Structure formats: C-alpha cells, structure tokens
C-alpha cells in the first residue's frame, strides 16, 4: 500500500479501484480538480481581460466616436505624444523612488531600534503596524485634513516648533504638494519595511554578533560587515515588493490633490484613470496601460531575477 503514498494522486488506493465511476475519477484527478476553480477564475478575470485589451489597443474604443474601427498604432501615438503622459511617468518614477528610499531608511532604523526586547514592546508593535490596515483613501483624506489650512493643525504645530508663523498651503503650493504626498505614503508604508526587515534581523544567527564582539568590532563595523550583508536578501525582497506597489500610487493622489494643481501630481495610474474613465478615450488609456505594463515588466524582471539569485546563494 505504501508505494502509493505521495505518488502525486495519479494512482488510487487498491481497495477503492472497484468502486469505479465518479469518485474514482475525482480521486484520480484530485490535484487538478482542487486547483481548477482558482485557475479558471484567474484565467477568466485577469488573463482574458488582458487579451481583450490587446485588441482594444489597436481599434477605436472611444465613447465620443461610435464603432470599433482598426486604427493601427494611433492609440499608442496619442499617448506617447501627450506631454501629460510623459510627465506622469516621470512623477511616478521619482515619487516611487523617493517614497521607497525614505521608507527603507526609516523602516530599517525602526527595525534596529525595536530588535531587542523591552517592556511595552508588544504594545508599541501593535501601534506601529496600524497604518497597514487602513485604506489608502482614508490615509490620504486624514493627511489632507491634518495638513491643509485653515482647518489642519500642521501649520500651527510647525509654527510653535519653529517659533514663527508658518503659512503653507500643503496641497496647492509647489513643492509642498509633493511633500504632502510623500508624508502620507511614508506614514502608511514605513511599517511594511519595518515589519519585514525586523523579521530579517531576527533571523541573523546570534553567534555572528558574538564573534564580532570577540573581535572587538565597532558598532558601525558590525552593522556594515554583518548586519547589512546578512540582511541583503530580505532588503531586496522588501524593496521589490514595496516598489511594485509604490508605482501604482493612485488613492492618495485622488484624495489629496486630485492630480492638481493643474496636472502637477498626475501619476501613471491617475493619468490613465482620467483618460479612460473621465474622458472615456478607452483605446488610448488601454494603450497607455500596456506601455506601463511593459515598462513595469522590465523592472519586475530585473528585480525578481536578482531576488531569485540572492535566494539561491
């Protein structure tokens, strides 16, 4: 009997072979039957829409113009020649890199600070992870409320600290709207970096630190020669995950600036939303989303390949 165990479900147990029919069939294809619902759902609602949108790329799909005539590369030409599209790409890239960089530095400092156990650590952990469970819409809204005058207390608090009146229009004044967006993003996602890096720190074998202590390494030397190299795979993982989410930036923009003033804070997602769902140039927006997807795939390919290589070594 034992030879069937773990044989991949292809061979049913001897005693059951007689009761042929449905149950034997279900037993034989068990591994595929249980994977099927999820597989079909993803194929129907993720792969099929993407294939459908491949067709939309090359036809007229505009609520202003009836019919779906073949237009060649016109949709791509429209999106590439739109200066708003290009500036949205730049804003997305720059904001993502700044956000992830700040979140990484703050998250790592916080993880190092929280690595040792102390009284009240559990409570502080619970507080620090709260932003991860809040809708980005609410994050954007509550930071808008906190910062924007005349209602928000931010200018008043800054004025008290700096001892002279502060009068910043956080959501409409350059460059403060970028700062406001970065603050909201850093508030929400630094805990992600922190939690992941803390788990990475906890996994470093303690005997490495004992050896460093024996060799009388300084704190900085220990950090650079032990902590960072040991943590490298986790750092790569955290940055990959975070960066791929950061480039989607939409909800905070929607709530805080609405892409404004003008189009200054348009990100790629916000631009595509405007073109597709507000102006209903769906063909152009689809072409734009495919360009974004291809650019993103390059980033994913580079990062995930590194990630896999780091995991192997």
């Amino acid at each position, binding site marked *: 009997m034992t030879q069937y165990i773990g044989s991949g479900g292809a061979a049913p147990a001897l005693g059951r072979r007689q009761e042929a029919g449905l149950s034997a069939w279900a*037993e034989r294809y068990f591994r595929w039957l249980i994977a099927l619902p999820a597989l079909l759902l993803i194929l129907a609602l993720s792969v099929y829409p993407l294939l459908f949108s491949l067709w939309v790329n090359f036809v007229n799909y505009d609520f202003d113009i009836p019919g779906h005539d073949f237009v060649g590369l016109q949709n791509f030409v429209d999106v590439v020649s739109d200066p708003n599209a290009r500036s949205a790409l730049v804003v997305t890239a720059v904001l993502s890199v700044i956000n992830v960089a700040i979140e990484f530095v703050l998250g790592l400092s916080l993880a190092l600070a929280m690595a040792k156990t102390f009284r009240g650590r559990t409570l502080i952990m619970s507080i620090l992870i709260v932003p991860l469970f809040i*809708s980005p819409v609410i994050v954007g809204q509550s930071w808008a409320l906190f910062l924007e005058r005349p209602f928000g207390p931010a200018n008043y608090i800054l004025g008290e600290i700096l001892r002279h009146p502060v009068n910043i229009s956080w959501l409409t004044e350059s460059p403060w709207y970028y700062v406001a967006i970065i603050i909201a993003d850093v508030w929400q996602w630094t805990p992600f970096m922190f939690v992941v890096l803390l788990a990475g720190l906890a996994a470093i074998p303690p005997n490495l630190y004992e050896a460093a202590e024996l060799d009388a390494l300084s704190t900085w030397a220990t950090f650079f020669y032990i902590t960072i190299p040991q943590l490298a795979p986790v750092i790569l993982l955290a940055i990959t995950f975070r960066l791929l989410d950061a480039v989607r930036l939409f909800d905070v923009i929607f709530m805080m600036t609405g892409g404004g003033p003008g189009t200054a804070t348009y990100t790629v997602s916000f631009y595509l939303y405007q073109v597709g769902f507000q102006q209903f140039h769906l063909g152009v927006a689809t072409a734009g989303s495919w360009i974004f997807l291809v650019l993103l795939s390059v980033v994913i390919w580079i990062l995930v390949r590194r990630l896999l290589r780091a995991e192997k070594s």
Partner: protein
Amino acid sequence: MADAATRPLRIRSRATAELPRILCIAGFVIFVLVPLYWMVVTSIKPTSDYLALPPVWFPAEPTIVHYTAALFSYRGLDGLTNSIIIASASTVLSTVFGTLMAYSMARFNTGSGHLAFWVLSQRFLPPVATALPLFLMFRSWHLYDTHVGLIIVYTVMTLPLSVWMMYAYFRQLPRSLEDAALVDGLSRWQALWMVAVPLAAPGIVAAAVFVFVAVWTEFFFALVLTSRYAFTLPTVFRAFLGFQGAQYGEACALATTSLVPSIVLGILVQRHLVRGLTLGALRG
C-alpha cells in the same frame, strides 16, 4: 580605582546608545498616532471648534451628530452594508479556492513551480491594466455596478494572497498525518477535509483576515466598477473631496467607522503579519 574610572564612562556610553533608539521609536509612535488622533477627535468635535486657534485637541462637548450625518445623509450606511457583504463573500470564496489550489501545489507539486510563480505575478499586475477591459466587459455582461461583479473581481484580486499564504503554510505542515489517513482508507478528499484543513486552520484564518482587509480597504476597482448601487465604503469618501461645505466632522466620522474593523482584525493576526505582507516568502 580602575573600576571607579570606567563605571561612569560605561554608563554614559550605554545611555548615548539608548537615546537614539528611544527617540526613534517615540518619534515614530507619535508620527503614527497624531493624525489618527486628530481624525478621531474631529469626528466628535462640535462644528464651532473646527477653526479654533490653537487647535482643539480635547473637545469640551463631544457630539455624535457627524456620525449620524455621515451614515444617513451621505449614504455611509449603504456603503458600509455593501462593504460588509462584498468583503465577506469574496473572503470566503478567495480563501476556499486559494486553500484548495495551495494544497494541490504544496502536496502534489502541481505546475512544478511555474503555476506558483504565475499566480504570484498576478499580484504585481497594476489594477489599472485589468480595470479598463473589465469595465468594458462588465458593461456588456450586466455586471457593472453589481455586488456579484465586485465580489468576483475581489476574489480574483486576492487569490495570489490566499494561494501564496496557504502554499507557504502547507509546505511547513508535515504530511505524515495525511499519509496515515490515506493508509487507513480515507479518500484524498477526506484526507484534505478531515486532516489537512483542521491542521491548517490557524493559517486559513490568518489568510482570510488578510484577504478581508485587502478587500475592505480597496478603492480603485470599486471606483471604476460601481456607481450608485454596489458602491463600497471607501468610495463614499468622494463626497468629501475638496471639503466643500467643510464637512470635516462627517469625513472623519466615516473614516473612523471604516478603520476600526480592519485595525482590530489586523492586530488579532499580528503573528502572521510577515507572511501576509510577503505572501509567505518570509516566515517571520
């Protein structure tokens, strides 16, 4: 003599090492709590306190008028009901289908790794890329602005999360008990439902919570695929955009209502947080 000379020095060096640590932790705790506190306190503030200087941190006469206004005048209650229905249904579907697929991949190596990575890659797909065609498809399939439509979309959206969390969980579980059940004459279905699922229950609960929170907080698909009928709680906040009429209290009341369930759930599954955030790539 040497002792007396070194002791104060050592204390000072420890204190200088501890101070940045404490400042770092305290600074971030304040950074996290202050805007949250401001939001909660604004939700119970009388309107006359809105623009007071210095800002009112402890309202003398707290009120619940903003809550009733947000829930009944701004259709917050409808959004809340829709969110509960849609998030619960997609949590059940995603967790059940995700657990099944994960079990197949973990125990039978279905798809030999390729399937797993294909599912993972779905996680990194930008929502805007699928939302555009889904919008067009849903309009012709009469799924636009329906509960069912959004439930299906959220089930698919969260499948990478539930599959990968459970994939990591099942790989950690020893298979010897399931093998013993098969020797005892149980079918594979019985081994799954009577042995593996009860053993994996803590992991399944954690995956379900992460799926629920992901759906509860989602905005983009709800914004694009619903309008007047199946709208969820996050989309109700559009009413407060630009804060015309200065509905600060109502906005804060609705935000407070929305974040309480997800924070409570999140803190309950704190132990599984790292697995949830990294889709099981890191154990934590």
